């Protein structure tokens, strides 16, 4: 595969800048952040320009833009939801409160709570918490990246904690 020349890359930027900006903006809903992410997208594309699939530039740039937007939203979400002291917790592990609630709850309660979770959390929690698969095994089974499984598992555990705590308060699981 021949490496794209600078002129060809410039043409690519001109042709797809609006598409990349639109994807970034629709996902992050912030014009300034979307402009930064658009630039980040093209910088990444330039650094990996030897792997641009000919004829699929639109999808390839769309994938990078979605990844950049995901990282931006993920760090904003973490900043808002991670409590001081939780920053050092390895990915995939939940804060102690989540783990405590899950340890305290019985298997049946956890199974019922997992059954009520929606996509994309239900299959991840089912595999990792009920079937005791590793995130790597779950990633393989679900066709998702391992990193995504880690974040979905962490978020899934948080949802489970909320449901289990609610059921402890009200005596039943609610949707």
């Amino acid at each position, binding site marked *: 595969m021949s490496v794209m020349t600078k002129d060809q890359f410039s043409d690519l930027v001109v042709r797809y800048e609006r598409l990349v900006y639109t994807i970034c903006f629709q*996902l992050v809903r912030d014009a300034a952040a979307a402009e930064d992410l658009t630039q980040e997208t093209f910088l990444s594309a330039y650094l990996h320009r030897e792997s641009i699939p000919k004829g699929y530039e639109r*999808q390839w740039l769309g994938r990078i833009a*979605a990844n950049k937007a995901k990282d931006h939203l993920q760090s904003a979400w973490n900043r808002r939801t991670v409590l001081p002291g939780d920053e050092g917790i390895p990915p995939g592990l939940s804060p102690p409160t989540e783990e405590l609630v899950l340890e305290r709850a019985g298997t049946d309660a956890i199974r019922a709570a997992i059954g009520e979770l929606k996509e994309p959390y239900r299959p991840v929690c089912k595999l990792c918490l009920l079937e005791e698969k590793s995130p790597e095994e779950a990633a393989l089974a679900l066709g998702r990246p391992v990193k995504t499984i880690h974040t979905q598992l962490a978020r899934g555990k948080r949802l489970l904690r909320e449901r289990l705590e609610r059921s402890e308060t009200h005596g039943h699981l609610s949707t």
Partner: protein
Amino acid sequence: MDIFQHDGHLTDEALTALAAGESLDETARLEIAEHLAFCDLCLQRYTDALAGTELLTPEQSCRESLWRRIRARAARLFLNRYATAAAAVALALTMLWGSAGITLPERLPLPEDRPTVSDRLRKWNESLDNAMSGVNDFFDGLGQRTPPVQGGN
């Protein structure tokens, strides 16, 4: 609104809402971005949906600043390599002279026409300077390039 189908892919409703610029909450957008980051099928559906809409135009185009960043990155990379190579040469020379001092009691006189280590270093320096100025000329040329007419999908 359901974001995901039972098979794990994004619903038409969610993709349509996203492509139409309708407001989705932040968690929904994060879940969608996470899915689009690895699912070829849904990414294709999304970009197809965007093809039928008016794309947004950024207030400031990234083209100028992008080339500035690429140029700065290339220069930094080049200087890092230069510094690494220089450190490697300095280390090699130190070791060479050190070991020569131990094993060779007397240095053999070099013939007049034989290139010395300092000659070679000087030539190597000159070739690196030439290469660096070539890189700068190249990026200067890029900066002066006239941007083509905006369009595309």
